[in-house]
């Protein structure tokens, strides 16, 4: 089963939204929070996602659509 490691960055207005819960419930993707830091105004979560590739892709597309930024957990690998 494909696994993806991402960093979700939340802005203020979304921190109360149960985004990760909905990824599991609505897209049948297993989630595992490895690290997180939620502060006033901004927060991030390093998240492992396991499921069918299409389900992971759909879930992340939905996460983006609600205003959460999705990046590779290890940072950008494309360098100048």
């Amino acid at each position, binding site marked *: 089963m494909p696994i993806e490691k991402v960093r979700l960055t939340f802005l203020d207005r979304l921190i109360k939204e149960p985004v990760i819960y909905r990824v599991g419930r609505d897209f049948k993707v297993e989630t595992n929070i490895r690290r997180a830091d939620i502060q006033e105004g901004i927060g991030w979560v390093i998240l492992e996602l396991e499921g069918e590739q299409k389900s992971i892709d759909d879930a992340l597309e939905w996460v983006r659509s609600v205003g959460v930024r999705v990046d*590779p957990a290890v940072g950008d690998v494309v*360098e100048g």
Partner: protein
Amino acid sequence: MSHVLSLRCKECSREYPVEALNVCDFCFGPLEVVYDLQAIAKSTSREKIASGPNSLWRYADFLPAEYNPAIDINAGFTPLIRSRGLAERLGLDELWIKNDSVNPSYSFKDRVVAVAAAKALELGFDTIACASTGNLACAVAAVAARSGMKSYVFIPSNLEAGKILGAAIYNPTMVAIDGSYDDVNRLCSEIADSYPWAFVNINVRPFYADGSKTLGYEVAEQLGWRAPDHAVAPSASGAMFTKIYQGLKEFEATGLISHVHTKMHSAQARGCSPIASAYEEGRFVIRPVKPSSLATSLAIGNPADGYYALKVIEASGGSAVIAEENEIADGVKLLAETEGIFTEGAGGVAITGLKHLVETGKIKRDESVVVYITGNGLKTTELVADVVNPVLIEPNVEAFEAAMAARAAK
């Protein structure tokens, strides 16, 4: 000999064997190389370093791979120049320019790739790879050519051909990816997981990053075995910035220099400033951005070491500074006109950042300063194309003299 003990997670401190690993299995934190500094202190000396090769391998005791002359591309040990014109223009008594634009493929990336490739060979890899929009591609292709390795270079398909000519000339396998910047990121992560290659800034990143420690060692040695009061360096992922400081601190820990008091200043461009913006807002959380900057070599919107760069700023008492997009080319021109050094946009950001740090009083006239120039301007000539404006004359002396008189009258 190498004095590496292990790899260790920077977040949860779990230890790992010295293999091609970059992420902690438990918390997904980044791994770093752990050295036996006591053993290094016994093995190293100023005399030993000074009699070593004229490349970054003079610091082999502090690096994760053994020195192998057969594959040394002579990265590093670049000039540290005492500034006259720029120092006078900015109002500084002791300004030094670390000119890393004269590395073999014309950027500091030769340092990190040289170390990554040497370690990759030790670990049994025959292929190195990277995803890049410029300097890193050049370094990977050049170092691979020198070391007899195969190389794969992934680039976004919308990149101008001229930007990667400096890599293509070394004959790597170059793959242009038809997709967004995010698509390129994701595909390369997947490829790194699937192929038995040393992807320099992914699976061998801990070793790769340590190549930048030599930017700290060299400056200390070239200053006569001392650390400067201030260091100003451009930041993209933040890795180089943190490693310069680590290099200085390791020289201190091994007794090669006395107390390191260097204030570290990170310079970014307005169009991609996730580290400097976090600093300005007083937070340690990096907010990733979509890069849009003339300083293309600094365009990393989600910097892997951004948090650690902020910690170095805090620990050293330094700062972060932003160059406006319309100041970048001016910074490039100022360095060229005053010192005879032609740098790329990242250098323009560093020079502009230095100027702002002096103007705001963060750097004072009588303090010693090193500014890092990390890439060469000949790769990105379009940034300053407007300087080409020759005086056109008829082929006779009268025309020349009339033109010069008109010019003097302006």
